[in-house]
């Protein structure tokens, strides 16, 4: 019987890891559909960003209470996963609480710590469910999240509650079994929180207790494996990608827009024809029409987004009822990547589907509403820049499609001919100075 369980466990683990690795590979492939961009400079500063922004969740602390609650889930989740190490080893080796005899009193202390965190995680998940479904915070009931994204968020919170409850129930039955003197269940000392649950199980027969204990154990680990494989399809992927995303965050001041060396050279060659190489080929594409034209970092951004909506809540356009929502820009980019990824899975390589990120996923009206104020960039806890994507799509609209509102065309021609966005004579530029000189 024991060997069957061990074999089953090995099978389950292998399947879970294989599935996850396969999907992670697809995500990596999708991200690398973007253009190359070297972001390996200044590793020490990048490492600092990783520590501060991802590990330390610095930006979350703009709202300390929420940050604290989020930190409980996050720390709880990571630290309790140390317990998974024991579970996995137990499963593989057919042992029970492998570490208990090795660690002695420390083991009791550790599990008590995990239980404390588990209770914290359950509490915070309940609060977060309330914020989403009862208090109905504006950024959570926003139309961006209609349908699957809203359910996704709730599923994650519910799963965490279930996983933590299984862990506590498992420990509670374990303690009753210990008290009953079942030799397979080592004495570990009492665990504070699960001990509170033991009255529910006292009086049950050893066999039913063991059945409950084993079921919780299996469901807990199976749940964790299922959760692992749910991540790549969920907004919750941020628990992994926030780290590389913080590391590769842009280090320049937010005000600086990405240069287009190809256009810079075109202008240089026009002004100084002698500098033009004879074989200068014009750039293939200006700005970004589809995900292939964006940088891989923009695409990593999209997979790192957990749809919290802080960007949208701070966006002046969105606040005043415009169509633009920076969160939706990120969600649309990820949707497009997923569609392209499926296309590649089916056809081995991308086959044109006569769609593009611009127009089919993100509309002109959204792009036109952006004031480039960087509020979304500032608000993002995981170093995403919706603004970079907006700017690249705008470049495509103007330079590839000559698609500008009438007023902008006037502005452009004024800048070109009068050297100012308004139709004033360049001769009047220093009129104010003449008035002062009088």
């Amino acid at each position: 019987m024991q060997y069957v369980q061990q074999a089953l466990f090995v099978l389950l683990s292998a399947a879970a890891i294989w599935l996850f690795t396969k999907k992670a590979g697809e995500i990596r492939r999708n991200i690398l559909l973007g253009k190359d961009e070297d972001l390996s400079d200044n590793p020490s500063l990048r490492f600092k960003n990783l520590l501060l922004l991802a590990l330390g969740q610095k930006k979350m602390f703009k709202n300390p209470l929420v940050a604290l609650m989020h930190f409980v889930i996050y720390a709880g989740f990571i630290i309790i996963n140390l317990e998974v190490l024991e579970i996995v080893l137990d499963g593989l080796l057919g042992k029970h609480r492998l570490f208990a005899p090795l660690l002695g009193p420390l083991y009791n202390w550790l599990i008590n710590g995990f239980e404390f965190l588990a209770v914290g995680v359950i509490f915070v998940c309940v609060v977060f469910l309330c914020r989403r479904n009862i208090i109905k915070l504006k950024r959570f009931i926003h139309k961006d999240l209609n349908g699957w994204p809203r359910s996704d968020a709730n599923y994650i919170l519910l799963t965490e509650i279930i996983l933590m409850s299984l862990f506590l129930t498992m420990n509670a039955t374990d303690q009753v079994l210990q008290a009953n003197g079942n030799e397979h269940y080592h004495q570990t000392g009492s665990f504070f929180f699960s001990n509170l649950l033991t009255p529910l199980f006292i009086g049950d027969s050893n066999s039913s207790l063991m059945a409950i204990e084993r079921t919780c154990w299996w469901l807990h680990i199976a749940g964790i494996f299922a959760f692992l494989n749910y991540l790549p399809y969920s907004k919750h992927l941020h628990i992994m990608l926030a780290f590389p995303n913080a590391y590769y965050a842009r280090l320049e001041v937010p005000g600086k827009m990405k240069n287009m060396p190809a256009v810079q050279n075109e202008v240089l060659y026009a002004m100084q024809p002698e500098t033009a190489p004879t074989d200068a080929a014009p750039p293939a594409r200006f700005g970004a029409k589809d995900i292939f034209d964006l940088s891989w970092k923009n695409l990593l951004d999209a997979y790192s987004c957990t749809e919290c909506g802080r960007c949208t809540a701070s966006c002046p356009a969105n606040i005043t009822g415009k169509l633009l929502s920076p969160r939706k820009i990120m969600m649309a980019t990820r949707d497009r990547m997923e569609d392209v990824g499926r296309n590649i899975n089916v056809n081995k390589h991308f086959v044109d589907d006569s769609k593009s990120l611009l127009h089919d996923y993100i509309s002109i009206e959204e792009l036109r509403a952006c004031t480039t104020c960087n509020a979304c960039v500032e608000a993002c806890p995981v170093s995403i820049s919706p603004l970079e994507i907006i700017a690249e799509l705008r470049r495509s609209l103007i330079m590839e499609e000559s698609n500008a509102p009438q007023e902008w065309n006037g502005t452009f021609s004024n800048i070109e001919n009068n050297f100012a966005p308004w139709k004033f004579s360049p001769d009047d530029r220093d009129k104010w100075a003449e008035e002062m000189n009088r």
Partner: protein
Amino acid sequence: MKVNTMAEMMMNGESPEILFWVGCAGSFDQRAQKITKAFASILDKVGYKYAILGKEEACTGDPARRAGNEFLFQMMAYQNIQVLNGYGIKKIVTTCPHCFNTLKNEYPELGGTYEVIHHTTLLQQLIDEGRIKLKEGGSFKGKKISYHDSCYLGRANNIYEAPRKVLEALDAELIEMKRCKTNGLCCGAGGAQMFKEDEPGDKRINIERTDEALATGAAFIASACPFCNTMMTDGVKNREMENEVGVLDIAEMIAASME
């Protein structure tokens, strides 16, 4: 007073300590011209040797670049860098955060590297050095002032303190709006929005921001950007509060308070 152009200075064999980059709004917009004049008069009063490019100055290309017209931006940048490098310009001050951002952050990789400072930073330096002397009991003493952060100064370039330090020197009571500093709300002008109608929505951004500023009960809204100034001025007029609340650039406040 005499406002010299670079060309005039060169002719007289002189070179200025700093180039005052006026910007299109500061040059042509009637409201913004007042800011330009106020700042020029401050420089003149403290004896700072400066010059302007005059007719040789052109749009930095910021609105074109933000709108998506990189070609036009690169053309403007090329022209301006030719002129600036031609005069051997080392240091630039500007009253426009958009020009500031472009000159400081975007021209270097195109071949135009200068020390660029915003006028609020220069004003703070001049006050700290004692070169700007403010009247005892100036007209802003004890008055409530709310400073509106310009996105291109604040989030874009991380300058939050200089404008506030300058305002503190006025002995005024600084009141922050709910959304300030890194959380500051845009006035609605950036990203070339200034030059087109709003997209469909239920409120104008400048009205949203003005309402927030008015809610502080401040007698003055201080700005550090000619575009913010226009947006907030329009907002205050829209709310028919122009007789109660003034919208002034920090340079105008200092110019009015100097000995």
